[in-house]
């Protein structure tokens, strides 16, 4: 039965990890704008033939 306690502890740890990730995501502003990123990902940079110095 003590395995149960261990497992519960482990599962809670995993859950806490996700909660932490979620809090970080909210704080970083991921939920501020739920439209633009969906458009942004469709742009491609095929035309960047000029010498790039961009540090992205």
């Amino acid at each position, binding site marked *: 039965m003590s395995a149960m306690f261990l497992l519960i502890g482990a599962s809670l740890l995993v859950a806490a990890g996700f909660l932490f990730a979620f809090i970080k995501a909210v704080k970083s*502003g991921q939920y501020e*704008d739920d439209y*633009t990123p969906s458009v*942004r990902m469709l742009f491609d940079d095929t035309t960047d033939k000029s010498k790039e110095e961009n540090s992205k």
Partner: protein
Amino acid sequence: MSIPVKPINDVGLKCYHCGDSGNPKSFVYADDHAFCCDGCKTVYELLKENDLCTYYNIEDRPGNKKAQEAASAGFLSLDDAEISNKIIRFTDGNRARVVFSTPGMHCSSCIWLLEHLNKLNHGVISSTVNFPRKEVTIDYLVGEIKLSELAGLMSAIGYPPAISLGDLELKKKKRASHSRVMKIGIAGFCFGNIMLMSFPDYFSIGDLELTPGLRHLFAWLNLVLALPVLLFSASEFFVSAYKTIRYKELNIDAPIALAITVTFLRSVYEISTDTGMGYLDSMSGIVFFMLIGRYFQDRTYENLSFERDYKSYFPIAVTVKTKDGEHSVPVSKLQPGDEMIIRTGELIPADCTLISERASLDYSFVTGEADPISKSQGEKIYAGARQMNGAIHARVEQATSQSYLTQLWNNDAFSRNKEEEHKTYIDSINRWFSLAVILTSLTAGVVWYFIDATVALNAATAVLIVACPCTLLLASTFTHASILKWLGKSGLYLKNANTIDRVGSATAIVFDKTGTITAAHEAEVVYEGSILLEEDEAAIGALAAQSGHPLSRRLSEYYNEAREQVVVEQISEVVGKGLVGYVGGKQYVLGSAQFTGGEAGASKGANVWVSKNGKVLGRFIFHNKFRSSLGDVVNELKGNYHLELLSGDHDAEREMLTAVFGNEMKFNCTPDDKLEYIKQLQHQGKKVIMMGDGLNDAGALQKAEAGIAVSDGVNNYFPACDAVLDAKAFERLPRLLRFTKQSRKIVIASFVISVLYNFVGIYFSVTGQMSPLIAAILMPASSFSVIIVTTLSAGILAKRLKISQN
């Protein structure tokens, strides 16, 4: 790189950049592409120079013509330290971050272009678009590019940032949606885990009995998990309940806060005495669902600002002439005695006297009066007018905050909070409901006390837990959320859910004229007088095209085709009077009756007289063009509403409007008159919707139960109001109003459903049989069915009333 070559032909010629099909003759060409104006061509060249022509592959003709028309020169004031400090969000001396609101963006190409600003100017480090809010966040190097240059660059590519005093002050407000997401996330997390750990207990019947150790652990873990829900996620219910109780009122959050508290306390009691697992799953569940409901309800239209006051309309700075040159001074710092220089198209920010000889002022913004007024030296000019012809000098008489126009904002209509004043039917239903629940709970407790005292507390608290008005709240929030969504889809944007009821319960509608029932910037032109030759028409059109006066512009549009390739010579314009020019050796004069020698006095509406070689030919009469659907809309509304028309304009169109509105019309109203008139109607017991569009309606919009601003572009400025109606949706107004009215039925229907659930729940609790399992099934079941019923029925109602475009 390959640029698609499109054949150029005059039929269906469209600008490569913005897709406008204007006058083909005025098109300019570059690289086998046609452009309607130099502006579009410039953007194209700018893009091409920087290898950004994929812009044109993303969407067909993506440029926005309208945005380009805005002046790009007016940004110099941004370099003023005081102003730039207000705008810049963050700076370390080397790089800085600024957020510009760019109402011009409208498609994915806009996002693309705005996010590639760093290709256009190396001073820009990066730019990020928030499309729903129509904002661009730009990081730039302070040493490389000035703020004014940045704003200029954005204007040049067609997205002039909208910067106004009001926005500067609003900026500091932190957005709440972000903490709402956090609350939902945490409530959801805790709810899920509590559920998981409650499962064994639900089924702990017979053989599956848990070992006491695990049971304990689960119970205490649940308690720990419930704490953030109670303290963080549910905090807004407690805060709002506390606020209303302090004013001896009872809003819907009060009984919910009570239910949450009771549930929590009872669970703590059960867990600490080891008598049960408590109802923490139900508690966190309802908090979770209610927060989601609120989220959807409050997630309205982020890019629309319903709180604008006069400051939003004024420029942030104005050029002031002092002994040592011209300076840009923030409008709020203007002192009486300052000499302002106002250029063409600029708004006059303060009451002042004219120093220059003449000024031609367009007061349409303030009074609704379409015809420009001419003022001469020494005359007083009120704030809010737009200078039409050339730069003028004027001496400030009063600081902006005390001017005639802004006085309106000191009216107490602006300091009230409509939400608090108007109690909705939901509040009254809630009051009865709460009362009934508390009585039932007490009765159950008292009755059980005499039968079996140990069950008494259980039964009483169980009633409070299960019958909490959360489904009631869910019903209204989800109904309102979907109604707001449907209304928004069809062009009526409401400020918040409370507005639905105020719009729905109105009994009278007051219309403003200019811009509301007339289509802005469109007028019918009627000519009266001796017959015009073709060459005359061409000459008139060409001459009118030389002037920036709104009537001239309409006239030149009217003769758009005739005026091609006509050369006008020796043009001279007398501000506020008219203009003279020679075409093919013949002198043409356009202007007022006095100026051209026409018969003064016989004026109806706006007139432009025309004379040729000193001989009066006739006059053009400009009629406001009413929205084509006006007649139908008014007829449809007549049966259900008391209709009125209030206009700041002269009564030239009285006859025409009588046919539509009957005698309920008032002309020449000042902004104050309008406000007072709304007050009068309210004294007669009417609930008023005010429909207006301009600053001159601002007072009335505030005073009315619901102020609806009619706007040709919802992203443009509109005055403070409760709702914005897209002008395109004007014809659907009656249907939209009916929809808001009938939405009440949906809320009531979902109330009935939730009451039914409550009966079941109350039966179990009153009889003392309430178990965590039953609570765990009842709660989500009632919540889900209410959510589904409301969302579906709102959709069905919207379809049936055909409120959207198709």
